[in-house]
C-alpha cells in the first residue's frame, strides 16, 4: 500500500466522486501526476446515484456563470471524456401552477437578464403544452432553459475516471483518508487501510465527508449531511423529452430513453454517513408521488420499481465551497454542492486545475470561498 514503488504524485485528490474525477482529469490533461484516493469505490455516492439533471435553470445567481461555462463543456462532453455520458439536451422546464407562480418566474428572468444572462425564458400555457403534452391542465406557464438536459450519472463519473486514467492518473479505492498533515512543503496523507502517500498539493473533494478533511487543517465548516431521495418507474412508452420541475413545490421529473421515469426533487430521507447508509422516509416519498399525481395525471397507474437516496453535502447558503484553503497553502476545496453539483462537475474540475497550475481562474469564485463561514 505504500507509494514508494510508484513516482510521487504532484497532486492527491481525496474523493472519487464526479468532482474528484473531474479535477483529476483536468490536471492529467496538463501533464500533472494525480493520485485519487477514494474510500469506497468511484461513483459510490452522490455522483453515481443522482438524478443526472444537467441544468442551469433556477440556479443561485452566484453559480450561474459557472453553470453556463459548464454547460458548454457538457455540449462537447464526448470530446472531453470520449463517451457521450448519455447526455441529451431537450431543455429543462419549471412549471408554474398559478398566476402568482408565473409572476415569480417572470421576476427571475428579469433578474438574470439584468445580469446579462439570457438562457432562461418564460413560456405561456400553449408552448408548455406543446413541449410537455402530458402536463396537467391547470398549469399556466413555465420557466424554460432550452440548452439544459440530463445525463447518466454513474456512466458519466466512470467516463471521467477512465479518461483520467488514460492520461496517467492513478486511482486507489477502498481506503479512507484518515490523516492529513503538512511538513516541509509536502502533504502527508494516511489511509485507513494502512496507505501513506505524499504530494505537494491536495484537493479535498470528499463530498459529504469533506468537513472532516477541512477540520484536520483547522477549517471547520457547517456542512450538513443530507439524503435526497429518488424513485424510478418501470418502462413506459416514451411520452416526454424535457426534464420538468415545479415552481411551488419540489419536483424533478424525467424520462430516460429506455422508458423509465425518474422522480425526485430533493425531498429528504435520513443519512447515516458513518455507515454509508441512507433510510427512506415514505411520508416524504408520498409527498413527491402526490406532486406527480397532480402534475402528470397519466402517471397515476405507473409502477414504482425502486427508490433510493444518496448522501450529499449541503451548505447553509446552498452553494458549494470552491477554492484554496484559508489556513494552509496548496490545499484546494471542492465540495458542498448542496444537491445540484452534478452539472457543475466538468467546470469545477477545470477551475481547480487552473488554480493549481496557474494560480488563478477566469470565473468568479469569490462567493464560494471557505472563509465565508468564519465570521
Amino acid at each position, binding site marked *: 500500500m505504500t507509494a514508494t514503488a510508484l513516482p510521487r504524485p504532484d497532486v492527491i485528490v481525496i474523493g472519487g466522486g464526479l468532482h474528484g474525477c473531474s479535477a483529476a482529469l483536468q490536471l492529467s490533461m496538463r501533464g500533472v501526476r494525480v493520485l485519487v484516493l477514494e474510500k469506497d469505490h468511484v461513483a459510490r455516492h452522490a455522483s453515481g446515484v443522482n438524478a443526472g439533471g444537467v441544468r442551469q435553470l433556477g440556479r443561485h445567481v452566484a453559480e450561474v456563470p459557472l453553470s453556463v461555462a459548464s454547460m458548454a463543456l457538457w455540449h462537447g462532453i464526448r470530446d472531453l471524456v470520449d463517451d457521450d455520458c448519455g447526455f441529451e439536451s431537450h431543455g429543462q422546464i419549471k412549471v408554474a401552477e398559478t398566476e402568482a407562480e408565473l409572476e415569480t418566474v417572470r421576476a427571475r428572468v428579469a433578474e438574470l437578464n439584468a445580469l446579462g444572462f439570457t438562457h432562461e425564458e418564460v413560456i405561456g400555457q400553449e408552448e408548455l403544452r406543446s413541449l410537455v403534452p402530458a402536463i396537467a391542465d391547470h398549469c399556466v406557464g413555465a420557466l424554460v432553459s432550452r440548452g439544459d438536459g440530463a445525463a447518466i450519472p454513474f456512466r458519466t463519473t466512470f467516463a471521467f475516471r477512465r479518461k483520467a486514467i488514460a492520461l496517467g492518473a492513478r486511482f486507489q479505492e477502498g481506503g479512507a483518508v484518515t490523516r492529513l498533515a503538512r511538513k516541509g512543503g509536502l502533504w502527508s496523507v494516511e489511509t485507513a487501510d494502512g496507505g501513506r502517500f505524499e504530494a505537494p498539493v491536495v484537493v479535498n473533494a470528499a463530498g459529504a465527508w469533506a468537513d472532516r478533511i477541512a477540520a484536520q487543517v483547522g477549517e471547520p465548516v457547517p456542512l450538513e449531511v443530507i439524503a435526497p431521495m429518488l424513485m424510478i418507474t*418501470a*418502462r413506459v412508452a416514451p411520452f416526454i423529452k424535457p426534464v420538468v420541475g415545479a415552481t411551488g413545490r419540489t419536483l424533478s421529473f424525467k424520462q430516460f430513453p*429506455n422508458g423509465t421515469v425518474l422522480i425526485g426533487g430533493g425531498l429528504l430521507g435520513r443519512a447515516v454517513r458513518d455507515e454509508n447508509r441512507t433510510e427512506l422516509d415514505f411520508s416524504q416519498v408520498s409527498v413527491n408521488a402526490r406532486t406527480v399525481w397532480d402534475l402528470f395525471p397519466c402517471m397515476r*397507474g405507473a409502477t414504482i420499481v425502486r427508490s433510493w437516496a444518496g448522501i450529499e453535502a449541503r451548505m447553509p447558503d446552498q452553494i458549494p465551497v470552491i477554492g484554496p484553503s484559508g489556513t494552509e497553502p496548496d490545499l484546494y476545496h471542492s465540495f458542498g454542492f448542496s444537491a445540484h453539483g452534478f452539472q457543475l462537475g466538468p467546470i469545477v474540475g477545470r477551475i481547480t486545475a487552473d488554480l493549481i497550475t496557474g494560480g488563478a481562474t477566469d470565473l468568479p469564485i469569490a462567493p464560494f470561498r471557505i472563509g465565508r463561514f468564519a465570521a
Partner: protein
Amino acid sequence: MFRRLPEIETAAEKVSFTIDGRPAKARAGDSVAAALLANGVTACRNTPVSGAARGPYCMMGVCFDCLVTIDGTGNRQGCQVRVAPGMAVETQNGKREVER
C-alpha cells in the same frame, strides 16, 4: 403446455373470462397465470427491451415475467392475481403506454 388432472376437471367450478377478447374458462382459485397456461397461452408478453416473448417462470411472484393487463390495468403479476368471472386479461406488448 399444461392440462388439468382429470378428476379436477370434472369437479371444477368454472369461471368465464377473456384472453385478448376471446372467451376462456378457468377453475375458481386459479391465478391468472395458471388460467392462461391452462388455456394453452404460454407467452403472455413481449419484453420492453428486445421484444422477446415471455411467459410465467416462477409462479411465486418474483420473476415478473407473467405481467399482463388485467381489466385495463397494465403490469399486473398474473401469478399473484386470482382469475375472476368476467375478467378481461390482455397479453402485453413491450413498454406499456402511459395511462394504462
